[in-house]
Structures are given as C-alpha cells and as structure tokens.
C-alpha cells in the first residue's frame, strides 16, 4: 500500500513558516522607510536603490548557476533581495551606478557565496560591501546629499537624475552636507566643542523624521524604528539584540557626556543619529551572522553598541555601526559556544542537578 510513508520521523505538522516568509516580512518592514527616502532624495536615489537590489539579484543568480544550484527556487527565498535592499539603505542616496554594482559583487559573491551561500557566511554581506566600498571609495561613499524631495522646488527631473547616476555625477561642494555624526566629529577635530557644534545640527525632531543629510536608509529614524517594532511584533526578531545594542550606546553616551559634555555627544544624540536604528533592528539582528541563543544575543548586542560608540567617539570614521557589526560577527561562533542555554535538569556546566534535600 503506497498511501503511507515512513521515511521521516514526527512531527507531521508544521508551523506556517518558511525562509521566504521571514525574508518577505523583513523586506515589508523596510518598505515605509524606503518609500519615504525615495521621496526625500528623488530619482537618483531611486535609481541607486534599483541598481543595487537588481545587481545583487543578478549576482546571486550567476553564483547559483556557477554552482549548479537551482536558480529560480533559491532566488525566491528573497535573501538576495534583502541583502541588496539593506546595502542600498546604507549607501549615499546619490551614489553612482557602479557603487551599487561593485557593492553587490562584494556582498553576494565575496561575502556570501564564497563562504558557502545562504546560512554559511560569517560576515553580514551588506556590511562587508558597505565597508569595502567605504575604504575603497571614501569620497563617493561620504557624499551625503541634502534632501531633494520629489515634486518639490529642489527635486530633480528624471533626465537630470539619469545624469547623476550614470554620467557626470553631481557637485559635491554645493549639494551635500555633512551627516550629523560627521559634522560633530569634524568640528571636534577643529577644536569646536560638541556642546557648540550640536547647536548647528537639525533639531532632534528633524533627525527623527529624517529631514537631514545621511545615507539612503538611515535618515528616517522613526520609520526604521516602526519597521523594527513590526519585526518584534511578528516575532521575526526578539528584543535582545536591539535593546542591548541601543542600551549600551545610550548608556556610554550619557555617562561620558555627563563627565565631559564638551568632548562627548550625549546618549540621545547617539540613538537618533547615524544608522543606530537601522543597525539595531535590521543589521545586527541578521540571523546568519548573529548568535542563536538569547543570552548570546545580549552579549553580541552589548558588543556592537560598545564598539559603535568607541568608533564614533575615538576612531577616524564618524559612523561605526558597520565596523562594529562586522567585528562582532567574527565573535559570533565564540559567543555561541559560550552562551548556550541551561539544559533542563542540568547546571550551567552540564552536570545533572542535585535532588533537593540530598547531598
């Protein structure tokens, strides 16, 4: 009789989960912030986004083909789209086409497939690409254009935008501004205390809304935060990594600001600026490259927050989220090894518990 199969043991029921569903949910959580930023920075940003995502998908398809893996089926899991999406979110909005293409090669070919494909990579592909681009093309990668909203006086026409993305680029001196973190760092190096330089920044409300210069996805803090909360509510991520990361950043910022306000920016500034929310909810929570246990995720989150604060405060780069995440990615196997949950009926060391009242 062929109606029963015994090739597999129980369970014979399954939660309605799949890799595709998980990836799709993360992408949907990014949509509001993406749409807002597309409006804020106009056609060149839209081109940059489409090129980056598109070339990630093409790179993924070519890698799969080269390895004789099923192309259509694997592309459908959405992981390449998500990588491209996150990479685009971390790039300057008006980056030229080749930044997106080279970035996708770094992300998909080097960081992902050379390590064995989905689930095997040690480092977050989008962050590998961002960092590789940043150190290779520092000028292009820090050209933070000021907002040029679509359909406004400052908005660019479709044709002009094509020129920016595929042709001559744009005048960096007149159309860009420093990001908040970059401005504070530069001023500090000129001897202007933080207490003074922050006066010239957009107020916190504008920073939260995203109406300031910055990378494509990091400007709109509130929409990114909303997306992160959706992921929490849908149980795609848990609170451990984001809370540990933001908490550490906030505590470090606040404590050092209290000690020396002229040298150190305060905790709220650290939370609202740069890629804090994007990093905390979308980058550091990347499944593949972060620890699997909740205990491990707390350690990892604290590490990311601490490193990001150190890099922002003491290192040459104004923003340290990508570096922090990559450094902690390298520690993930060790964290996993040392932060396992306590097994039922056993001590943390794995010895059986003692029966109460017995020696």
């Amino acid at each position, binding site marked *: 009789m062929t109606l*029963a199969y015994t090739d597999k043991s129980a*369970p*014979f029921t399954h939660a309605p989960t799949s890799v595709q569903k998980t990836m799709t949910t993360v992408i949907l959580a990014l949509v509001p912030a993406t749409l807002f930023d597309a409006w804020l920075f106009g056609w060149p940003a839209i081109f940059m986004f489409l090129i980056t995502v598109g070339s990630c998908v093409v790179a993924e398809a070519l890698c799969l083909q080269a390895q004789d893996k099923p192309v259509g089926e694997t592309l459908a899991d959405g992981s390449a789209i998500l990588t491209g999406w996150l990479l685009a979110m971390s790039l300057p909005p008006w980056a030229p086409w080749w930044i997106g293409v080279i970035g996708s090669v770094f992300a998909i070919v080097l960081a992902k497939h050379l390590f064995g494909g989905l689930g095997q990579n040690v480092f977050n592909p989008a962050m590998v690409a961002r960092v590789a681009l940043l150190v290779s093309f520092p000028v292009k990668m820090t050209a933070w254009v000021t907002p040029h909203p679509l359909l406004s006086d400052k908005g660019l026409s479709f044709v002009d935008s094509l020129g920016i993305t595929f042709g001559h680029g744009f005048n960096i001196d007149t159309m860009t501004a420093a990001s908040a973190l970059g401005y504070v760092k530069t001023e500090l190096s000129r001897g202007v205390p933080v207490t003074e330089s922050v006066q010239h920044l957009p107020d916190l409300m504008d920073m939260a809304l995203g109406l300031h210069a910055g990378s494509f996805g990091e400007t709109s803090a509130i929409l990114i935060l909303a997306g992160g909360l959706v992921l929490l509510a849908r149980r795609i991520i848990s609170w451990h990594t984001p809370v540990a990361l933001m908490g550490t950043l906030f505590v470090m910022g606040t404590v050092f600001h209290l000690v020396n306000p002229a040298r150190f920016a305060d905790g709220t500034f650290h939370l609202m600026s740069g890629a804090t929310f994007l990093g905390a909810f979308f980058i550091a929570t990347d499944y593949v490259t972060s620890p699997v246990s909740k205990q491990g995720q707390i350690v990892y989150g604290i590490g990311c927050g601490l490193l990001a604060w150190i890099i922002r405060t003491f290192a040459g780069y104004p923003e340290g989220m990508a570096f922090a995440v990559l450094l902690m990615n390298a520690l993930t196997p060790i964290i996993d090894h040392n932060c396992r949950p306590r*097994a039922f009926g056993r001590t943390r060391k794995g010895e059986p518990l003692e029966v109460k009242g017995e020696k």
Partner: protein
Amino acid sequence: MKIFPVRGGIHPDYRKDLTCEKAIVPMPMPQKLYLPLQQHIGAPADPVVGAGDLVKKGQLLARAQGAVSASTHAPTSGRIAEVALITAPHPSGLPQLTIVIEPDGKDEWAELPAPVADPFAASSQEIRERVAAAGIVGLGGATFPSAVKLNLGSQNKLETLLINGAECEPYLTCDDRVMREYSAEVIDGARIMAHALGTPKIVVGIEENKPQAIAAMTQAASAFSNITVVGVPVQYPMGSERHLTQAITGLETPAKKLTAELGVVVHNVGTARAVHHAIRYSRPLLSRVVTVSGGAITEGKNIDVPLGTLVSDLVAFCGGLKEPPRRIVNGGPMMGQPLPSLEVPVVKGTSGILALTADEVNERDTKPCIRCGGCVTICPCGLVPVEMAAFIRKDNLDGAAKLGVMDCFSCGSCSYVCPSHIPLVHFFNYAKGRLNDADRERRKLERIKMLAETRNTRVEQQAQAKKAAAAAAAAARKAAAAAASENPENKASV
C-alpha cells in the same frame, strides 16, 4: 493553585475540534484481532496459548516475563487462529510474533478472580499484583508497565500522584473524552494508585483548552479533600512528565533521574481508569479509547477499540478515507510514529490514528539553515538543536552527545518551527539510536572483557595451584626419598 512557568514550547494548530465533541463509541467486533506479544516497554510476553485453542474474553494469552513486561489477554471470546509473525505497528514495518484471534461473536467472559473487596485496605503489593495481572501499561503512549511504576513508593518518599490529563498533542481527544465521560472511574483509579504508591496528595493536571474535562473532573474529585484538579497553560509539550511536574510543583527533575526522586509519580488518565477496572472488577486491559482523526478521515471519532483491531477496520468504521493521506500516524502528529500501512493492529499504546493530508503535514523541501535560533528559543529541554544537527550531519555523534542530544525527548517542537523545514528530530532520533547502540556495544565489550579477565585469572590460579601442588608433591617425594635413604626400613615398608 500556583502554576510554575515552563521553558520553551510551542502553540501548534490543535485541531481538537474535529473530534472533541464526539462521544466515545464502541467499536463493533472485527473479523480478526491481532495481538502482538510486545505492546509495551520491556521484554515481550510469553504466549500460553497455541493455534486452535478456544479462549474466553479476559483469558490470559501471553504472560509477562522478567521484571519489566506486561501480560496480554483475549479482548473477546473465540479461537486462536495462529501465533505468527505479523507486521507490527512500527515505522520499520518489521514483523513481530502476534497472536491472532477469530472472535466467535459470543463475547463470553472467562471466569475472573473476585475483585478486591476494599482496595484501600489492601496492601500495595496486592494492588500491584492485580495491576500487573491485568496487563496495564501507561496508556499515554509510553507503554511502561504500570505495576512497575506503582512500586516507586518502595524506594522513594512520595508526596504527589500527578494524573496527566494535559493531552497536549494536537488532534487527540481520547483523554479529554475519558475525563468528561468517565471522570468518577478516573478519580477512583487515581485514589487506588495513590494508595498503592503511598502518596498523600493527588493532583490532576489538565490543559486549559479542555474546560469541560476540568469541570467534570473537579466535580468528581469534590468529595476528596486530597485531590486537586488544576488547569495548566496550553503550551506543547505540557504533557511531558518532567514538564508537567515542573508546571505543577515548580521542581525541575535532574537529568538522568526520575520524577519519583522529587516525590512525584505521573500516570495518565486512561491508565487510572484501567486500574479502576482491574481492581474493582478484576477486568484486564482489553480495549482502549482511540481518537481517529485527520483531514483524510471521512468522520473523526473517539472509539473504544478492542486491542488487536486492525487500523484498516478502524478507518472503515469511520467511513473510510475521503482522500489519499500523506501520512498515517500512530499517536499524535508531534510525537507519533508513521505507520507503514493500515494493515497493522491497534495496541495498548495507540492513543490516536491520524490520516493527515498533504496540507495538514505541510512538508516542504529542506532549505539551508539560516540560524534564526527559533529552535533554541523553543526547546523545552534548553538544548541547541541547530548545533546538534550540524554535528550529526557530519556524523560527529560524540559532539552531539556533549551538547546533550541524549536529553532530547523528541517532542518535535524544533522541527515544527524551523523555517527551513529541517527535520531536526529525525537527526536526533538517528543520533540517539546510534549512541544507544554504541553504548550497548561498549557495555557488552566491557562485560566480555571482564569475563575474559576473570577466566584468565581463574586459569592462572588453577595453573598456579597445579604447579604448587606438583611442587609440593615433588618436595614430598624428595623428602620421602631422603627419609627413605636415611631410614631403609621405612622404604621397605612403602
């Protein structure tokens, strides 16, 4: 009553509504009954009947042998057709020695011993003997001989008898129905078991998705001040012995120990009812309540099934299959065994027969692990399934053992939540089987080595004794010769 939190767990789609309002109906006697000699954990029973024998209902067919075993009785009167190798209700599809009865339709009872007059005046041993004679095993599915488990009071100081009515497996409603329809019998059986165990307290734990069962059991228990009926959270695998014990007492059973060492013994509601029958009416275990359910079954039912009934007869009684099932499962969907065919009998441990459609099982191709950590979060044993599976994939079974794979009780939660549809429990079952084999092999070798060493020592000792004796004899001869040469008269006298 305070309920303590239990780690991990999942909330599967329970689908108990398919059968929870279906009252228990008796199964019409089928053409033939197939009673395997091993329907329990332990040694198979020893048949005491042969082909051609006429048997009465309740008559002993096969006797328990060894310390852990259970007897089997005739579920009805009839003729023994044969004692032969027949496919067992096991995924392997391997045959097992099975007694086949052709019922005569008369359903005539054998002469049963007189019931225990007052169980609460009887000794623990007498109750255990009766329970053993009735062939009762744990009816929750573990099928451990109940009489052995009722003896735990002799080695431990017991506080609580925990009656397990959690029934956390999806689809299954047989315990729910038993508690609703036979609450008084369950409570009486529980009281008898508590008496045999020497536990002052009885707690009945029922998942809160069975309010009618909780109400019925509370009502039946109201006359007894030492019985508490308590609702426990709906959280699979709440029905696991250790987890239910933790939820109700707050005590965590140490690894490799029994709940009895914490003063708690857990028995299933169906087992309690069987004990009631065995003690009050001297009736052996002849039938059990089985939930037949699943999307491929025409009409799901709760049925009182004579042991040995073929699953195909049971399915036919439920109107047959309305579509081809993807899986036929013996037990619940989380921990049940896949059946090789419908032509296998219902045994003592069969709590459910499920015919599940492809939609219900939702099987998909395995994708690469994305390390989401879902399996780590939900593991009720606090293990790291993702890492254990990675070791087992490379056949590094010792590595998996170090991570605690032997602590896994295959509840299936990790496989259930895995977005990549990795059959994690399948890996663990494989590893546990191999590790158990290796352990048995190692112990066997140790025993052989021990025996060989003992033999060598013995042989050596014998050789030495012989040598010593020979030396002594030689010395004696020498001495004698010397004496003789000194004393020729003596020599002459020899």
